[in-house]
């Protein structure tokens, strides 16, 4: 609210009311994003205005009273569960994420796999992305192929989900909500790329989370609301990271939706030492290499290098493109990985 606007109000009281209204409108727009709390205040207190006296900030506490808080006392908390769910289902407006994988550069370092598994709390044999040894025919050369979820524009997995637990967002990401999933595994059956995994047992750091839950109860019990709130934010389910993982639900590659929101590239893309991955926004016609950070035109990259997509005959229209393994930088250890009959088993 500007100074001019302020002049229109006759009394401070009216001004307060107006700012309150203004604030409520803002709340409506940001959908009740709970963002802050100070050491003295209960988490869930909402900021009203970033202006105010120097070093102070105006905010609304849980009792809907306008208060001022010293800036030094402010702690920014992670958005709460409801907000995470809302923005996670909505996605980033105006974006169309796209990944390009240059097969000529992959040497099976598996750094992408490791980074992904560490970010999403997965065991070594639980994959969101896996590097596969591929060979198309006996006379053609074998090559390595990183295979994340293809984030199809015509996703077969999403079509069969009975409860809208897996869904496509406006920015193209196919996400999974493990607070919703009933564990029927129809999506696994429907996915032609074997991109999905299931938590057959308690996920990797289940015990750690159980411990945090207990700690949370303890803190609440002793009235340490601030510490409790902080811990809660840590253990709340983040749909864009799919952590904590849950027993009996599906998990899959998310294009690191949580990182994209912060302007960072996915975990796997950033971790690759060999410049295999490009990631970017199709709307901007640009992708950036995760290793060299070089940004190139997507259309030119695909045109010049004969980019292609996996199993195009299925009409799934993936958002992941591959550049053929031409002039590979690394030799494959074996001459052929196919058995005598010429088929992958």
């Amino acid at each position: 609210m500007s100074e001019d606007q302020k002049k229109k109000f006759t009394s401070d009281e009216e001004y307060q009311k107006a700012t309150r209204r203004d604030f409520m409108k803002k709340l409506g727009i940001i959908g009740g994003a709970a963002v802050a709390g100070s050491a003295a205040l209960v988490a869930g207190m909402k900021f009203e205005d970033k202006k105010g006296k120097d070093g102070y900030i105006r905010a609304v506490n849980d009792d809907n009273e306008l208060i001022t808080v010293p800036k030094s006392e402010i702690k920014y908390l992670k958005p709460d569960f409801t907000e995470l769910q809302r923005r996670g289902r909505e996605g980033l407006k105006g974006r169309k994420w796209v990944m390009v994988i240059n097969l000529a550069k992959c040497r099976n370092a598996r750094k992408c796999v490791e980074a992904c598994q560490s970010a999403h709390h997965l065991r070594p044999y639980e994959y969101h992305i896996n590097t596969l040894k591929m060979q198309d025919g006996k006379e053609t050369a074998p090559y390595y192929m990183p295979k994340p979820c293809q984030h199809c524009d015509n996703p077969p997995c999403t079509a069969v989900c009975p409860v809208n637990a897996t869904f496509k967002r406006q920015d193209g990401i196919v996400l999974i909500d493990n607070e919703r999933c009933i564990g029927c595994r129809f999506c696994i059956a429907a996915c032609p790329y074997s991109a999905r995994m299931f938590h057959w047992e308690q996920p990797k750091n289940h015990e750690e989370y159980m411990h945090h839950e207990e700690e949370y109860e303890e803190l609440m019990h002793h009235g340490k609301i601030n510490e409790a709130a902080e811990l809660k934010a840590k253990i709340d389910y983040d749909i864009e990271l799919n952590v904590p993982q849950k027993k009996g639900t599906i998990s899959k590659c998310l294009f690191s939706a949580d990182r994209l929101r912060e302007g960072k590239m996915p975990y796997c893309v950033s971790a690759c030492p060999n410049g295999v991955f490009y990631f970017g926004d199709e709307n901007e016609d640009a992708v950036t290499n995760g290793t060299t950070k070089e940004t190139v035109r997507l259309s030119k990259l695909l045109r010049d290098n004969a980019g292609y997509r996996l199993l195009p005959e299925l009409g799934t229209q993936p958002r992941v493109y591959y550049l053929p393994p031409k002039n590979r930088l690394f030799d494959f250890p074996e001459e052929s990985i196919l058995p005598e009959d010429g088929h992958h088993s």
Partner: protein
Amino acid sequence: MSASVDHFSPDKNKLNKIAEDILKPVGFSKSFMLWMGFLTMVFLICGYAYGIQLEKGLIVTGMRDFVSWGMYIANFVFFVAVSLVGMLISAVLGLIGYKWIKPIARIAEIVAVGFAMVAGLVIVVDMGRPDRVHHVFLYGRVQSPILWDVTVITTYMTISILLYFLPLIPDLAIAKGRMNNAPKWLVNLYEILSLKWNHSSKQFKILMKSMRILLILVVPTAFGIHTVTSWLFAATSRSGWDSTIFGPYFLTGAFVAGTAAVVILMFFYRNSFKLEKYLTDDHFDKMGKLLVLTALVYLYFNINEYLVPALKMKRVDALHLHALFAGHHAFLFWATQLGGLIIPMILMMFKPFRKPGVLTFLAVCVLIGAWFKRYIIVIPTMEHPNLPIQGVPEAFMVYSPTVIEVAVTLMTFVMSLMIITILSKVFPIIPIWEMAEEASHEGDAEASKTESLPAE
């Protein structure tokens, strides 16, 4: 049931005799208690196995990320398949006007009810989060075949219960005055469920009309239930499932399995309930012929289903077919096709093999074959995805069911058997009034003169 009946005027002596025969096995005998006790025990043991699964997760099964549907889903398809026989016998044959199905129709409906009721539970058993079943109703997506399946199973189960219950109403009215030794609660139950039935022509008119409507409605519903179940597979692009004939293929297979199940139950009732007079050799002969017919149609679909992809040998299809014809699953494949379908079918073409005992044995072969056939449809396909399976433990690549999985599957069978057992001991297994009417018509034409009910 013939729809022309609107006066019930049976020969009294014959009715008495028939009612006596059929009501004799009703009630909780010692052998019933023993059998139920046994079933309960097995149920509890298997229930414990399911408890372990709930506790530890589906890790206790043989399923993993690649073969993510296993025995449970195969079993689900089997349950749906068997339940379809209610529709085949009551509706298809009934509407055509075959009279010989009258004593069998209720048995077929019992099978339908028993298996349809448990089918829904079988799918819950397969779920990773059974505690979230209500999500299907809260957040259901109409585009998902699972939602169609849930809907159509519920509908079919309701119609089957009605198809079982409606013809039972006159029987309950007949029985309630004749149940001298029955416990009081059973008499009361009959009193309530007979809905003040007094054999008036008005009541008959309503009953006949309702039955006719239901028999017509059950046909598309039953087609729907199994076609939709087949779409759980055919809606994917996997080799072995990606087929346009999966609906009729499943449907005809269902008729084979259901007919075999009814034959087995008929044999059991005939011997244990002493109903040789009502379930005659002729009935078995006719059911044998029906089984041959359904098996022939099913064989025809089998040939289509396997031969067409075998002619082309597309990349993954070839792997899949190789595993079935000569590879990992060859024994099971040929055992089900030959021992569970082709050989029994050929034998049943000859009259001596349609005698009750032999036919029942062959029906058992067919039913077991039918179960393993579903296994063969579900598992090998999942072992051959489009992209290679790499970097996972050995157990991820090949599926082998665990003891717990077998126990939980057994539990579903026990539940079905319990429902069937209770229904066949609480209520008469053969429609008394229809048999009496039939007998009266056969005996003498003057039966109608002796009694004349006031018409409304």
